[in-house]
């Protein structure tokens, strides 16, 4: 017969404290399509975990539903593959009582900008200390090529056979218009060193860092980002002492490279809506924004006896004494 006491009792740890390598952050084998941009994102976060020597047991990857949201399964950390659109509030719940955990969120363009859009606005405002990666392939991948809010006008998909009707939602401009934001960046999956550097900066930012990653979907939109990949003219690399740092060799590959001070929100908004060139780098950073957990998580440790005392005080308010 099952013995809950025995089964639930903690056992003695046996910790091996060698340094972590990238292998320590590998979960089950990734099952994305060949050349899917998600593979690059996975590599970047595994590298980050190893470089930062994050304890795998202290790290949680939270995701919604979609191809992108499979990422936690491929990590060797804790993971929470949740519901379509709901990764952010789950991550908030984790963070509120466990500020000791490193929390990452992986979400897709449908997951974040459509079904989870309400949570997106509010997550930005809560500004809890976590790293949010928006895998934006401009299509619904997992459900086989339906239009997404970020799909460009005219895009032919299973649900827009005559082309998408509306102008797309711009996730960068939208985020930069939200309240209490503290970190907004844009990356592309095909520039691994830049992607890594942006995620690295995002991780070190205290508050919610929102990284939109333009992510290729070779299966359903194989040529969607060719214009940016083939023509470096179309990319605007944003560097700054307080922003992205890249090696000269990398910078030299881009015709358009500019210094952008990430504290300049107005400029960030202009860059985000630039039709000609895709900005890559850190658009906005403000380390001084209030984090929800800082004002909501109590620091003092209460013992059971303290709690009993506090509750007795509450009971006192409502007590009627025995008669006679």
């Amino acid at each position, binding site marked *: 017969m*099952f013995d809950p006491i025995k*089964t*639930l009792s*903690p*056992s*003695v*740890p*046996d*910790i091996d404290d060698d340094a972590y390598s990238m292998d320590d952050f590998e*979960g*089950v084998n990734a099952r994305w399509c060949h050349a899917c941009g998600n593979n690059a994102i996975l590599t970047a976060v595994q590298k980050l975990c190893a470089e930062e020597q994050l*304890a*795998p*047991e*202290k790290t949680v990857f939270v995701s919604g539903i979609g191809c992108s949201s499979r990422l*936690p*399964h491929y*990590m060797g*950390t*804790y*993971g*929470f*593959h949740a*519901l379509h659109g*709901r990764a*952010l*509030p*789950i*991550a*908030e*719940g*984790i*963070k*509120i*009582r466990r500020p000791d*955990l490193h929390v990452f969120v992986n979400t897709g363009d449908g997951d974040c900008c459509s079904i989870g859009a*309400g949570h997106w*606005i*509010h997550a930005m405002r809560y500004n809890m200390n976590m790293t949010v990666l928006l895998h934006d392939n401009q299509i619904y991948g997992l459900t086989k090529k339906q239009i997404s809010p970020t799909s460009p006008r005219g895009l032919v998909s299973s649900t827009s056979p005559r082309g998408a009707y509306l102008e797309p939602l711009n996730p960068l401009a939208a985020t930069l218009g939200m309240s209490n934001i503290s970190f907004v960046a844009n990356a592309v999956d095909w520039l691994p060193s830049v992607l890594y550097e942006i995620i690295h900066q995002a991780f070190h930012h205290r508050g919610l860092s929102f990284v939109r990653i333009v992510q290729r979907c070779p299966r359903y939109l194989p040529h969607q980002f060719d214009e940016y990949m083939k023509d470096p003219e179309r990319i605007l690399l944003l560097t700054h002492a307080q922003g992205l740092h890249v090696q000269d060799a990398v910078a030299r590959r881009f015709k358009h490279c500019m210094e952008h001070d990430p504290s300049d929100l107005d400029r960030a908004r202009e860059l985000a809506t630039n039709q000609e060139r895709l900005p890559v780098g850190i658009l906005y950073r403000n380390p001084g924004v209030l984090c929800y957990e800082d004002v*909501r*998580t*109590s620091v*003092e440790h*209460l013992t059971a*006896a*303290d*709690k*009993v005392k*506090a*509750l*007795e*005080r*509450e*009971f006192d308010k*409502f*007590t*009627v004494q*025995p*008669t*006679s």
Partner: protein
Amino acid sequence: MNDSTATSELDGSLAAQTPTSAVDQRRVDEIRDHVVEVISDSGEGAQKCGQSFASIAAKTGHGVWTVEIIPAEIEPPARSIEGASGNRIRVGSYYVNNGGDEADVVIAFNEQVLLGRERAGGLKPGCTILLENKWRHHQDPAIVTAYTSTCEQLMADGYQVREIPMEQVCLQHTNNPQRGKNMFVLGMLSGLYRQDLEVARAQVAFTFRGKGEQLVKRNLRLLEAGYEWATQNLEFAFEIPSVERKEAQIVVNGNTALALGIMASGMEICAMYPITPATSASHYLSDVFENVGGMVHQAEDEIAACAFAIGASYAGKCAVTITSGPGMALKQELIGLATMAEIPLVIVDVQRGGPSTGLPTKVEQGDLLQAIFGSHGDAPRVVMAAATIEDCFYLPIAARKIAEAFNLPVVLLTDANLATAQQPFARPQLRKEWFAAPVDQSAIPEGERPYDWDDTTGLYRRFTPGQPGGMHTVTGLAHDRSSRVAYDPATNEEGLKHRSLKLAAFQKTLTVPEVFGDPQGDLLVVGWGSTKGVIEEAVARVRAEGQSIASLHLTYLQPMASGIGDILKRYRQVMTVEMSWADRLEDDLITYENRRYSNLAWLLRARYLIDVDCWSEVRGQPLKPRMVTEVIRNKLAQGVSHV
């Protein structure tokens, strides 16, 4: 017997003003119980008056149960039939467990709200009505006509109407009687029921504590004026003998009890989105939860609230989310996730009228089936329902324990009736073990898997982030014992089976509920939730007529304890009494083949293969024992519940 919270510094100054009434020459009727209603336009304070009267009655050793009378709008037009706002208080010289039948005494601030209560069937034929009479002299002739014709009509209908110059008397003590009339009325009521004036004073001082000495003094003056007025101007009074109270009790409504229970349960996160009638629990909790290391998170919507609670549970101790029917519906997908990923979670649904926005401030028991079966696929969870205010305190403690021991969601159902009703219960003796243990952060031994289901019970030890060696990804997808996504048929069934087995394992811990009444006989009435007191009172009345009947009240609805089926078989007929819709066989189109039963009747019929009948009333009001008594008599006489 006095409450020690009396403000001693005020006692001295007021002693001189204590009414030195002439000898009380009123006729005094000794009664066992009474139902009293205090009603006004909203904002005039009848609710505060009624609640204070209930507290005074409780403090002087009476059984009480209160029912809030609330209009649907925050500020309905003044003097309107739909605008009645106030409180119904049943006071008795015994343990009172429901709001009783129609009112014996009504105090009304205007005749329109009174009419509203009359039309709602709230008044007992011939009952005593104490009515503010200032309308008789109003400058608007339409108001005067409305007032006088209503008075005449009510008198013609046999009600004992007493017109009282409430405002006029108040004017002798305050220049703004609008703001103090309710305390004058409280004094009148206390005088009418010969309550101890000292206790009433202490109550007023407590109610206005922290609002300044001036205000306390003014309200005490009004209280005393009302008391004196009743003593000198009414030729009758009532005496409800008090019962001895051997132990300390607490007097709170169901939502406050719920909040206290949550605090005592060791849960530390309550995530919610405002919705009546659940919200007031979070108001109180927001005020005091931090004192026990907890917090209330008002999320952007109910879905986020549920997700937040799941995240907090996953990474630490079990969390709770509170809502009402519409929010419950929104949470269902996430409740399914908590079932699938096996994350402890407590969901409280303070039920209100539905569907859709329904009767947002009023009572209904329509969520039982969505609580059990909501969500897609097979999403087993435990469902329990509070029947008393005391249950509202203890069930969150049980819910947290069950959720953590079995790694599943537990739904606790209460309703609008319990949310606002006050009923004293024994002051709880707190136990430290109610508070959850610290989060386990020990290393996971090599080879242990995150879903190592015990083959008999489905139980296993859950891994929490922070535990070395326990890394895995929980998922709403079908998964194996290592939490790896697995779509193969055998693995899917293995997961379904073990998640379901946990309910069976939990069911083994349940004890069969006690039957109220005859151990076998002609009729068994089955109920759940806030109707317990009403059903038992009706059963007692019919048993007193010589019938052999009983009732059975279920706290655990999913799963149900072993032995219930055997109980049902001991009675010639079985019926449920509920506040969720059931088709009525006397309607032309309704037959045995298309009748839709109320919630619990469906469940009992399906599980026990017994022809369980049901009677329900879904009028947005608590059931009345008199009505249920008639239903039982009918059922015994004719074999059908609705005729």
